[in-house]
């Protein structure tokens, strides 16, 4: 009887141990393990790859800054296949909004975020970082804003949580300086990876 109880206890303990070592969820575990892992994502680290499973995107991410007109510069990749991380904002996983911009198209081809408007609330987005950690985000909303009403306050005014904002172009083609009339944006909040 005693040995049976001990064996059961032992199995549970081993389960917790394995769970903590591998990061797999187990039935219990001590809160410290999860805590430590969460904290590491608050360390700054540039993103390297963004994965949006629901629309089949897996793309390289490069740092970008501001363009001459003060807008966030998209990556200088003529094929529009890479996404740009706004390097003057938080890293994905840190408090505040990490911003990724990507082309809907270029002159010659469809771009990395050409299906961004098909993303739905609840979809999962993963961002792999250069420190080999991954921040996961759950989509809260997909919204459209006129080109000259980019919601900077909403993006950069909220530091309460770790968020991810994806931006591309959309709406009617106007051409000239404007290009497309709108920006399609995805807002997501970090969830445990």
């Amino acid at each position, binding site marked *: 009887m005693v040995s049976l109880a001990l064996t059961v206890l032992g199995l549970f303990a081993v389960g917790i141990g394995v769970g903590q070592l591998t990061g797999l969820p187990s039935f219990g575990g001590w809160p410290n393990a999860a805590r430590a892992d969460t904290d590491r994502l608050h360390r700054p680290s540039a993103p390297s790859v963004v994965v949006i499973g629901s629309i089949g995107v897996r793309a390289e991410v490069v740092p970008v800054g501001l363009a001459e007109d*003060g807008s966030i510069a998209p990556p200088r990749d003529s094929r529009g296949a890479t996404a740009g991380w706004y390097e003057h904002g938080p890293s994905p996983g840190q*408090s505040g909004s990490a911003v990724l911009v990507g*082309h809907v*198209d270029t002159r010659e081809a469809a771009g990395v975020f050409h299906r961004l408007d098909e993303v739905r609330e609840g979809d999962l987005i993963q961002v792999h970082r250069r420190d080999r950690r991954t921040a996961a985000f759950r989509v809260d909303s997909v919204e459209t804003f006129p080109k*000259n009403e980019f919601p900077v306050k909403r993006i950069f005014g909220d530091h309460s949580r770790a968020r991810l904002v994806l931006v591309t172009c959309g709406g009617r083609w106007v051409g000239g300086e404007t*290009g*497309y009339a709108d920006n399609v944006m995805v807002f997501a909040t970090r969830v445990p990876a």
Partner: protein
Amino acid sequence: MRVPRIPTVRHGLVRLTTVLAAAGIATILLAAPARAGGVWIQVTPSSVTAGYQTKIKASCQDNTNGAEVRSKAFGTVTVQPENGLLAATVTVPASLAEGGYDVTLTCRTGSTATTTMWVLNREYSEDGYMPSKHGPHTGGGFLAGAGDSPAAQVWLAGGAGALLAGAAFGLVSRRRRAPARTR
């Protein structure tokens, strides 16, 4: 004569499992206090924008009395008992330089624990790193059928065709003339 043998094997197995399980439990009992009941400190969120608040949660062996938390980021604060733990809310000064700051808990017993808080401080003003209200230029028009306008392609194709035709015509007329000269 065979009958007593089986219990012996079974006994051996039982003993072995007991010893293994006991060893396992001993390990847990020794290891658990270091994690669960030990001395630790946590800052949530641990990345914070300068000028904003963050919360400190900590634990000493005895959480009925306050303890001291120090950091270059905010000086010294006292974490007070709250739901069996120790807690305090701190505001990160708006002028604080960006970077990682150690946050150290010192219990009354003298034991300490340290964590890192990451401070973000970018000047999000019009002259700083705040993007303008103009959204990023992320479209070239290909999907709208506007990228390389058909007119340009017609010009290119037409031009190239004319050049080829011209070259061919030139070659033919040279060949026609050439035999006449040798005669």
